[in-house]
């Protein structure tokens, strides 16, 4: 896990067959050589069938990949789709009107420009515009996607975001939950949406999340209690 790898180095792979490439691994079309293209930690996972390899690295700009759960901002609407921004200045993605639960030609979704949506990436070819959906397309049913009403967004780095999403044991959110009640939606595109009833809780959560990103895990508890203390002692 902790082997550092840089572009130009070689992966520590035993066989060249059945290799699955993850983010940060690239196969040069000219010489078919598998090589890392970003700096980070090498992760090689072996299963019975194949070996998957990727480079665990941290960055700020999100590149859509199929299956990712994201928080997007509606920036435009057309006759049959919305335009959604997943990160500033990146190529926008589309959200079709038909990609909502119970969608039909007559039943149009009622999102406005400036709304936040929680969605899933369903198409992400690098040559084409990516697409997101607000419905579980395998069942056609509501899967908790859609408009995020109210709340606020904390922008964090992508690796931190992944940790919050995939590591259920990661203590940050449970520590926050001890201090306040909130709803949360983590977009893998580096946007953490959350909503508290109290504006002071919102502020404290925002400050805690953004500060904890740059501190070690052992400090998190004291950071969170510090922020809640200062804000709750202030006059509403």
């Amino acid at each position: 896990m902790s082997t550092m790898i840089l572009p130009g180095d070689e992966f520590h792979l035993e066989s060249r067959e059945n290799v699955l490439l993850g983010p940060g691994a690239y196969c040069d079309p000219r010489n078919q050589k598998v090589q890392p293209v970003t700096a980070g930690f090498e992760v090689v996972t072996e299963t019975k069938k194949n070996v998957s390899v990727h480079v665990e690295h941290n960055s700020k700009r999100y590149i859509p990949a199929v299956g990712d759960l994201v928080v997007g901002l509606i920036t435009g609407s057309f006759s049959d789709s919305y335009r959604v921004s997943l990160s500033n200045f990146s190529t926008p993605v589309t959200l079709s009107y038909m990609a909502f639960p119970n969608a039909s030609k007559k039943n149009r979704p009622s999102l406005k420009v400036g709304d936040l949506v929680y969605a899933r990436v369903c198409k992400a070819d690098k040559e084409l515009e990516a697409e997101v959906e607000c419905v579980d397309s395998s069942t056609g049913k509501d899967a908790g996607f859609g408009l995020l009403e109210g709340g606020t967004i904390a922008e964090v780095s992508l690796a931190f975001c992944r940790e919050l999403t995939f590591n259920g044991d990661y203590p940050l959110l449970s520590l926050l939950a001890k201090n306040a009640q909130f709803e949360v939606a983590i977009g893998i595109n580096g946007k953490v949406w959350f909503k508290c009833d109290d504006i002071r809780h919102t502020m404290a959560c925002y400050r805690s999340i953004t500060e904890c990103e740059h501190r070690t895990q052992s400090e998190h508890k004291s950071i969170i209690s510090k922020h809640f203390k200062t804000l709750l002692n202030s006059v509403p």
Partner: protein
Amino acid sequence: MLFAQTGVLELVDGSCKLQCGETTVMCSVTGPIEPKARQELPAQLALEIVVRPCRGVPSTREKLLEDQVRGVVTPVLARYLYPRQLAQLCFQILESGEPEELYSSKELSACINAAFLALVDAGIGIQASFASVCLSILEDGQRLLVNPSQAELIESRSTHVLALQLAAGAKKVENLLLLESYGDFDEQTLLQVLQTGEEACVKTALELRKVIEQKLQKDFVWR
């Protein structure tokens, strides 16, 4: 010799500040982002490079620097990974470290190294590591200096900028990315420059690796 720090700018995807001797540059990378229609390339990543001088407004001198940096960065970028996208590289020279009206070698070499760090920081795919050094040969034609000081540079008979593409833990030289020489020299000197420069580039690359190691520690501090 070389001091660098990554992630110095908040609002861009990757950034670094690099000091090499008397020269200091700041580099920022934004991308892959949506390009303007005229920049878009159908199959690959487009590059926009901007060099800002440490004083005054940009001139043709900065345009040439931009062109030289582009020549180095383009072949190492994994540009087919990001079709129809754009990456912006911005350089701000903070300290030139050389008489600007006569030389630009030290700035160029610092910009190339800064570009590497900033690209890595931004997470844009690059196919190999690269590093650059500036070399000069003193008036007597004998002494070859690596990363000369300003005083040494103006006494030099010829100045050279070398950038190499490195592989296998920055120990193996894979390709020559740039060798640009001005002044008065001959074939023998040039070969000597290549030889000495190769060792110096490998050394620089190892220093850059250390900077990246620190960056990774900082990135995953919350683990």
